[in-house]
């Protein structure tokens, strides 16, 4: 491959890897928004909860990665149901701004609980560190490929759940038209709990996937939340395929800008692209509510 083509291909590949990981929590955020109608910033701390639950499973109980990732999903999902039921639900009557701000307070609270329990230091999963595979002048890490696989499987399961199961269809119905769904006898509270579980579970899974590639500390989720939010908004807040496309756009966009600019402008370029997309398509690439 000519060097320039290889360079572009490598950047696109890196962007796809980063974007796929980003897509998992972005789907969580957008699903919660679709049903509960507020941006839940507590996603950040739930990603951290997942990362730490996975850490406990992997390092302290010695479980392999895939079961640990499931633990991350379950722990963050359960934390999501509890925190939504007891903290955020009472705020929902006061409007979405109040709830969104309450979710920021909640995320800081949970983050500090984690800090209280685990301390501030960096932790790493018990994983063999492998050299990258090289082919056609490109390189890709075995760990990244595994992460990509986990993210892809999680997303496929979610799409199947929403498309083919009764509960999934009920969730889509509430997201689409809550009043009509209520008339049809769908219990909005149950759907709210379910979406909190799935949404925050995905956040936890995403948090662990980020941690697998790096290290974790109580700020793991907080560092990622801006990009997660950007991905969801670019794709169209409320649209699950949109979240995937948004995440890939942000991921690949931030990498490709390295062709022209110094890496310290990465976020600036990413977010300028977001402004551009939203100027042209104010409701995001796919628009809201496109399941």
């Amino acid at each position, binding site marked *: 491959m000519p060097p320039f083509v290889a360079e572009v291909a490598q950047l696109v590949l890196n962007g796809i890897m980063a974007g796929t990981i980003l897509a998992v929590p972005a789907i969580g955020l957008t699903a919660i928004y679709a049903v509960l109608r507020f941006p839940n910033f507590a996603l950040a701390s739930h990603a951290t909860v997942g990362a730490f639950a996975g850490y406990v499973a992997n390092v302290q109980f010695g479980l392999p990665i895939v079961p640990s990732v499931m633990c991350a999903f379950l722990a963050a999902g359960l934390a999501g149901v509890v925190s939504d039921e007891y903290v955020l639900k009472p705020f929902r009557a006061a409007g979405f701004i109040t709830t969104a701000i309450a979710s920021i307070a909640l995320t800081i609270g949970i983050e500090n609980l984690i800090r209280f329990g685990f301390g501030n230091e960096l932790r*790493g999963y018990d994983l063999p560190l492998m050299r990258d595979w090289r082919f056609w002048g490109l390189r890709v890490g075995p760990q990244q490929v595994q992460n990509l696989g986990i993210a892809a499987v999680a997303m496929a399961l979610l799409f199947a759940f929403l498309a083919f199961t009764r509960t999934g269809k009920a969730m889509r119905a509430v997201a689409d038209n809550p009043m009509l769904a209520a008339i049809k006898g769908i219990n909005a509270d149950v759907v709210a709990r379910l979406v909190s579980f799935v949404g925050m579970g995905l956040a936890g899974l995403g948090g662990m996937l980020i941690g697998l590639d790096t290290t974790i500390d109580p700020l793991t989720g907080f560092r990622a939340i801006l990009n997660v939010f950007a991905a969801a908004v670019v794709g169209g807040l409320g649209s699950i395929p949109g979240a995937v496309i948004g995440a890939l756009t942000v991921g690949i966009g931030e990498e490709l800008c390295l062709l022209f600019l110094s*890496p*310290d402008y990465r976020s600036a370029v990413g977010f300028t692209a977001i402004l551009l997309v939203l100027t042209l398509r104010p409701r995001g690439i796919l628009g809201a509510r496109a399941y």
Partner: protein
Amino acid sequence: MTKKTLIASRRTVLKGAGALAFTGAMPAIVQAQGAPLQFGILTPLTGAGGFDGPRMLKAMKAVLDEVNAAGGLLGRKVEVVVEDDQTNPEAAVRAARKLIDVAKVPVIMGTWASAVTAAVAPLCWESKTFLTTVSGADSITLLPHQGYLIRTQPNNYLQAGKHAEFIASTGAKKVFVMSIQAPFAQPTQDRIKSVLPTKGSEMIGALIYEKDKTTYRSEVDLALKGKPDLVYLNGYAPDVTVILRDLYRAGFTGPRYAQSYAVTGKVLEALPPEATEGVITVQPSADVDSPAFALASKRLGIPEPDSYETQATDWASLVSLTVAKAKEANGTALKDNVRKICQGAGTKVYSAVEGLKLLAEGKEINYEGASGPCDFTDIGDIIDCKFRYNKITGGKPVFLKIA
């Protein structure tokens, strides 16, 4: 709270404060000959610097106790007036005002955070009060302080220069520098770029990366494009951890070089040993071979006083010796005379008491400190200091050298 000593009851503090206010209100001429000399100490006893401040305070007091035991300065005992800067510029300014306006101290020793020093320094030079600090930001000594400030901490310029010299001495010919986006990034890269060629090496490229990224694969690709022999990681622990991992994955086997604060014990625990094998770490070091260091160690009763304790030792010694040399205790005398006792051709001395003896005999002295030679540039930066180098082997730092 104004304190004469670190441990003071509320009543003694009140008495002290009252007495201070009283002496402050009296015309100077009424003050009895032989009343104690008061030195101000403004150091973080709480906040982010709360670990270093109390230890620096102890080191300063230990030196001044020795000076008092040897007869004091100008025939007077030395007393310290201690204020807590709370590692907070706003609290520090209030405390400094108290030291300057009420206690009328000739010197304030001990500011730690750069933000605190930047806030307090203007009060000092305007009131002609001398200030000694450990704050490292280059901007501190660039303030228009007219000589009323010295710092014993190596600034970024000195550190980067020393790092470059060491890197070249390892035989690395092609060096790439990866810096986190921070105020020190560009100055460090500029300095390394200019020093390396003088030692037969070269900086083949540099980049500045954003913090808080979950991966630095593309940055690593950029860094490795020119096939460097050594990669200098000029960042903090969270990002350096990710980069060390990414460098390993990319197949880089050459040496990597980083500040000790970026490759901490926790980082070594979090990373598999193969990712950190051979990493060289560096940190400013006390001058452990100096007789002044041995004296400080004995005085404090600890085997290895650290960089902050030794710097505090040196401030108290420098200020005492300067007062003796100038035969007066005010900020202007300190600024005009400090370089007369710590650099030049005088007899080398390693403690305040030793120097005071020679000064009393009318001899010239050159104080060599526990933290380093204590020679200052015109703007108050130290000219030289030692660094400690470790090499990570099997996931543990192994001592290389102090140079």
